[in-house]
């Protein structure tokens, strides 16, 4: 199985260790993982601002980088959602359609494609609060959103349940957006920061030592919020926990 690894731009710049953990984790399952060297971004910053025209060349580059793989895996629900649902600024050639359909977020790739039933190397004896990125939750179906009347399920919590010692705490507002919102965090700073503050307070009140998420961008915003408030929260990507990070 040939897997193309997409490392989102935020992660490349600010969280390289998450990219490393993702690569290591995928290789534990005997996959042929390749990191195409000319990759940059999925185009989401431009597209979410309405500037599809400005995103077209970036989207085309993404498709050039990731054509021909059996799967494209990204440790980000948000970027995966962009590729799968919104990569429409370029003509929908068979290549483009194929890349979009084969792009998976890491959690769903482990849960739905590889159907991993154990992470014997993983142990994380901490109280953990899980943060659902909104695109992961409502865009690509990581879990049952609290607004819907449907049986509960959560792919990330299913995976975390296989990690020895890990305890999940409950939030008062389980899937409230943290306010990152891509360029929203720049153009609407007052509301974005307030939402970030409320989110990290919720984590702290729930008794979490760590916040775990499948999206680094939300965590970058939340970490900045927690530090500003002086809350002793630590942030770690689900790829690191599943790869056996000691903490």
């Amino acid at each position, binding site marked *: 199985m040939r897997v193309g690894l997409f490392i989102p*731009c*935020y*992660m*490349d*710049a*600010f969280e*390289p260790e998450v*990219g*490393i953990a993702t*690569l*290591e984790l995928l*290789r534990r399952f005997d996959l042929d*993982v390749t990191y195409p*060297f000319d990759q*940059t*971004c999925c185009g989401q*910053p*431009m597209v*979410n601002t*309405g*500037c*599809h*025209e*400005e995103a*077209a*060349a970036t989207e085309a*580059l993404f498709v050039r980088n990731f054509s021909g793989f059996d799967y494209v895996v990204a440790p980000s629900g948000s970027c995966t959602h962009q590729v799968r649902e919104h990569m429409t600024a370029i003509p929908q050639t068979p290549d483009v359609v194929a890349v979009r359909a084969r792009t998976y977020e890491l959690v769903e790739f482990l849960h739905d494609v590889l159907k991993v039933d154990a992470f014997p190397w993983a142990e994380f004896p901490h109280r953990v609060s899980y943060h659902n990125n*909104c695109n992961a939750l*409502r865009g690509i179906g990581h879990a049952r*959103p*609290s*607004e*819907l*009347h*449907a049986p*509960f399920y*959560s792919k990330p*919590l299913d995976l975390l*349940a296989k990690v020895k010692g890990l305890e999940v705490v*409950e*939030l*008062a*507002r*389980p899937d*409230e*957006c943290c*306010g990152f*919102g891509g*360029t*929203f965090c*720049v*153009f*609407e*700073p*007052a*509301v974005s920061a307030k*939402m970030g503050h409320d989110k990290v307070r919720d984590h702290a009140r729930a008794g979490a030592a760590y916040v775990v998420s499948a999206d680094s961008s939300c965590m970058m915003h939340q970490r*900045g*919020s927690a530090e*500003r408030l002086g809350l002793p929260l630590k942030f770690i990507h689900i790829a690191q926990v599943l790869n056996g990070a000691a903490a």
Partner: protein
Amino acid sequence: MSHPQEPDRHRMIHPDLAVSDDEAPRSPDGHRLEHGAGTSRPLRPRSHEPQPRGARVHGHRPIDQNEAAARFIAAPEHEQMHDERLWDLRQKRDRQMRAIPEWEELREIASRIKQHTLSHLDTYLEQFEAAAKANGVHVHWAEDGAAHNRIVHAILRDHGARRLIKSKSMLTEECGFRHYMAASGIEVIETDLGERIQQLDDEDPSHIVVPAVHKLRADVADVFARKLGTDPDNDDVHYLAERQREATRPLILEADAGLTGGNFAVAETGSIVVCTNEGNADLSGNVPKLQIHSVGIEKIIPQVADLGIFVRLLSRSALGSPMTQYTSHFRGPRPGTEMHVVLVDNGRAARLGMEEFWTSLKCIRCGACMNTCPVYRRSGGLSYGATYSGPIGLILDPTFDKRKYSTLPFSSTLNGSCSNVCPVKINIHEQIFAWRKVLAEARELPLVKRAMMSAAGKVLSHPALYRTAIRTADSALKVLPRFVVYNPLNTWTQGREMPPVPKSTFHDWYAANHPAPAEDPTSPEAKP
């Protein structure tokens, strides 16, 4: 796996929200009232924080929602009460939803009935008109808000009416009805408590269902002291509501005409259906000799039986109660009185032709999207500077004025909660996303935003440029992802610390550790 997020978490009260003296809402005889739309939160001690006002409106210039939201957030007692109150309504809505196994099916049916009706709207409007006329109702058609106001004014003039009592109607807000009538010598009295508060304070409603939800009771005490002569130091809610009842009752009895909006107009019977909790629409429709109902043309539903779907969804979605206290069906005039219905277009027929946006006409004005919206809850409805605020406002307002409301679709994180709570399944967040594209193509984005996106698009599509940009801090200023943190607007540090900068990027690490494709990749030697 069990349901780790399911237990009844309404018992989990945030520690900083628990107040020592629990001034829980109680009836005058001391027992606690919690049903229907009532809050399940304890009351806080009286606040002396001045009420933040709404967006500054300058003609057709784009609304600065963030500026007004920042002022709302800078009034923490107002912001916190607002956020908690609306989140409480969202939780009440969730509890109602969980009690109905067919909930998602009801939403789907409601959505399809609306789509069916909207795509046959001409036929159903004609059917409605014929049925209403057969019942002795006068039916009027208004192309826009100005026409609506003129029609109502003419009806009132024909009857020599000087005083009009009305119940809450977003349509009349949309038409600027109160402002128009102020110049006509006809006195308009809002009879919904929240709407009356807003009228007396000369402010627009900030929420579709709870118009004064952004106000603390001390703000109401202040308004009533100025306008109704109540005791300015008494902010007891029972006292305030009772004084308002006493002040309004004579106005109701002496009114010459009554006006209501309409939640539904039934084509089969020509009926107007109005849902309220106070019974004020029933007073407006049943006390004066002249009754007028102003209804948007999209409020048509085909049959009476369809109400069995919509009424089940409306109040559960809006307030978390199984039904509004009053659900009233006006089908014809009382003996010796007149009943008029004004069917108003005001941009709706044009919206019907907008391929990506016509389904916004399904909206039944429940406000659930506002209650769940994390941006709305922190901003207050007046920050949008528009008739409709919150998620539904973001997609309706630009249809009225593309330039003035060009900024609103950006006041969203696109989190999608709004679409999930919508009882008629409007894909609200997808329409917000689609509006951004429309506005960008219409060159309605601020220049700085457009320039940033243009620069980002260039750099991100050229790997070499991107690699250079990301490595050097100074030239990276224009480029994502660093752009977010180190952008020229310098907004990140408003409330957030900067992320630590690692020694190298993932890309560089990979290059350093994978010099040749054949190398064993399983044990990377060095980490940044």
